[in-house]
C-alpha cells in the first residue's frame, strides 16, 4: 500500500476473472444456451411474438422478484410472497362489485378506494412480518412461513371457495390492457425493475441494503439502523407482491384461492438463478433480470418442444438445483480467494 502503484498489470488472469465473476457469468451462459437450444429445437420458438409472450409471462413474477431481491440482498428470505399476492388480489376483488353469479358476500366500494384498501392491506401484512422479524426476533424464514399461512387464510376467508371476476378499472387496464400495442403489464414490470435498480445502486438506502447483507456488524457500527433496513425490505416485498397480485387477478380474469402457488418457487428461482447470493450482499436487479429470462425461456421453451409435461417439472427442479450449487460454490470460491490473498 505504501509502494507506488503496481509496476504494470500482469497479463490478464482469465481464470481469476471467471472465478470472481462466476456469479454473473453462469446465469448469462445458461440463458444463451437455453435460447440457442430452443431456437434450434423448435421452429415456433424464435419469433418476435413468442419473445413478447415470454416477457408477458415473466412480468408478474418479476414484480414479486424485485421485492424478493431486496430481501435476499439483506441476507433474509420471504416465503410469503405468493400467498400475499393471492390474498391482496382477493382483497381487492372483495371490495369490488361482483357479478351476481360470483356469489361472494362482499363489500363493494369505488374502484380507486378498493385499490387503496388493497395497498393498505399488503402494507399491513408487510408491517406484521417486519415487526415479527425485527422487534420480536423471529427468523425471517419462519416468520414468513407463518405469514404465508396467514395470507392463505385471508384468501380463504374472503372468497370461501368462490371465484371473483370483476376488478377496478385502472387495475384491469394495467393487468390486461395494452399500451400502443404493448401489454401494460410489461411496461409496469420494466418500470418497477428500473426504479428498483436505481434505488439499489444510487441511493444510501440501497447501499445500506448491501451493507446489511455484507457485514451486519460493520453496518451497525457505522450507525446504520439495520433493523429498519430489514423491516423496510420486508414491507417493500409485501407491497410489491400485493401489487403483483392485483395485476395478476386482472391478467387471469379471476381471483380465487391458490392461484399464485407457482409464483413462490418461480420468484425465488429467478433471484437465485440470476446469481444473487443467498447469503446476502451480492447480486442485484441485473442478476434478477437474467434469472427471470432464464426461467421465462425455460418455461416457454419446454412448451415449444415435444416433452412429457411431467418431465418438465423435473427439469425445472434440476435447473434450480444446478443454480443453487453454482450460487453456493461461487460464494465459497470468493471466500477462499479472499483469505488466501
Amino acid at each position, binding site marked *: *500500500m*505504501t509502494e*507506488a502503484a503496481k509496476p504494470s498489470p500482469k497479463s490478464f488472469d482469465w481464470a481469476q476473472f471467471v472465478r470472481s465473476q462466476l456469479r454473473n457469468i453462469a446465469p448469462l451462459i445458461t440463458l444463451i444456451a437455453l435460447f440457442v437450444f430452443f431456437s434450434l429445437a423448435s421452429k415456433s420458438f424464435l419469433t418476435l411474438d413468442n419473445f413478447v409472450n415470454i416477457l408477458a409471462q415473466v412480468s408478474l413474477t418479476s414484480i414479486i422478484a424485485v421485492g424478493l431481491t431486496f430481501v435476499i440482498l439483506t441476507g433474509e428470505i420471504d416465503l410469503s410472497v405468493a400467498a400475499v399476492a393471492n390474498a391482496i388480489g382477493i382483497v381487492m376483488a372483495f371490495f369490488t362489485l361482483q357479478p351476481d353469479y360470483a356469489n361472494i358476500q362482499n363489500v363493494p366500494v369505488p374502484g380507486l378506494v378498493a385499490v387503496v384498501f388493497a395497498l393498505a392491506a399488503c402494507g399491513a401484512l408487510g408491517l406484521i412480518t417486519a415487526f415479527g422479524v425485527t422487534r420480536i426476533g423471529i427468523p425471517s424464514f419462519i416468520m414468513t412461513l407463518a405469514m404465508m399461512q396467514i395470507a392463505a387464510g385471508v384468501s380463504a376467508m374472503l372468497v370461501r371457495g368462490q371465484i371473483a371476476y370483476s376488478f377496478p378499472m385502472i387495475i384491469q387496464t394495467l393487468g390486461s390492457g395494452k399500451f400502443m400495442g404493448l401489454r401494460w403489464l410489461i411496461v409496469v414490470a420494466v418500470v418497477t425493475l428500473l426504479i428498483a435498480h436505481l434505488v439499489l445502486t444510487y441511493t*444510501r438506502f440501497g*447501499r445500506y441494503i448491501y451493507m446489511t447483507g*455484507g457485514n451486519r456488524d*460493520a*453496518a451497525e*457500527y457505522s450507525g446504520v439502523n439495520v433493523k429498519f433496513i430489514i423491516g423496510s425490505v420486508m414491507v417493500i416485498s409485501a407491497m410489491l407482491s400485493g401489487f403483483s397480485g392485483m395485476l395478476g387477478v386482472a391478467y387471469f380474469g379471476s381471483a380465487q384461492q391458490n392461484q399464485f402457488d407457482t409464483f413462490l418457487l418461480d420468484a425465488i428461482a429467478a433471484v437465485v438463478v440470476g446469481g444473487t447470493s443467498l447469503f446476502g450482499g451480492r447480486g442485484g436487479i441485473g442478476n434478477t433480470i437474467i434469472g427471470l429470462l432464464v426461467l421465462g425461456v425455460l418455461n416457454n421453451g419446454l412448451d415449444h418442444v415435444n416433452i412429457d409435461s411431467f418431465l418438465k417439472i423435473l427439469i425445472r427442479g434440476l435447473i434450480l438445483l444446478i443454480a443453487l450449487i453454482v450460487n453456493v460454490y461461487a460464494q465459497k470460491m470468493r471466500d477462499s*480467494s479472499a483469505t488466501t490473498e
Partner: protein
Amino acid sequence: MTPLVELRNIVKTFGGVHAVDDVSLSLAEGEVLGLLGHNGAGKSTLIKVLAGVFPADSGTILIQGQPVSIRSTRDAKTLGIETIYQTLALSENLDSVANLFLGREMTGPLGFMNEEAMEEQARKTLGRLKLHLPSLSSLVQSLSGGQRQAVAIARAIHFNARVLIMDEPTAALGPEETLKVAALVAELSRQGIGIILISHDIHDIFDLASRLAVMKNGRLVGAVSTADVTQDEVLAMIIAGKMPERPNS
C-alpha cells in the same frame, strides 16, 4: 503543554468486579501510546469508556483540558475519537470508497449518492496518508490484510479524527504488512493525531509506540517511555505488575 486526552481516576465496575480501578492516563498530540496487558487486564474496558461504548462509573475525561461527557460512540466521534476494532468492521462486498463512507455517504440532489465527490474525497484522504490502493473501485474482499487496515484507518481519520484507537492493529498481519502499518502510524503521528495501540503482545507494538502503559487486574501498573526500557522489563511489568526497579523511568 495540555495533553490531547486526559483520563482522570476512571472507574468502571461490572457487577462488583472492578474492570477498571482508578486509572489515570494521558495522551499528547502526535503521541503513539501502547496500552499493554493480559486479556482481562482492563485495557479494552478503559478504551471502551473513551470510545463511548459505555460510560465510566466515575472519573473525568478531558479533551485539550476541557472536561467532556462521552455517553455514546456518537459523542466520541463528534469529539474526534475514532476506534478501529480488530475486525476492522469493513463491508467486504463493497469497494474501498463505499467503505470509507460507510454510514456517512455524501448525497446530491434527489437523495442520490454523489459517487464522484466521494471518490475524490477518498483519493484526497488516501493521498494524505501516502496510501496507494491498486484501485478504488475494487471490492474490499480482494484487498490484502494491510490494505484493509489502510482502508479502516483512512475511514477513521477521514472525518477529522484527533484521537485514533487501534485494537491489535498488526496481530493478523505478516511482517511486510506490519511494516506498512507502522509507517502509516508514524505518518499519522507526524500529523498530530494521538494514537492508542492496544495489544496483549509486547512484540506487536514495542517498535511502534513511543510510550507504553501497562495494566493488570484493572489497575494501571505504570507508563514508561519505550526509549528507557527493554522488552523484558515491560514483560515483567505485564506479568508481575511492578515497575522496573531503577530511578526515574
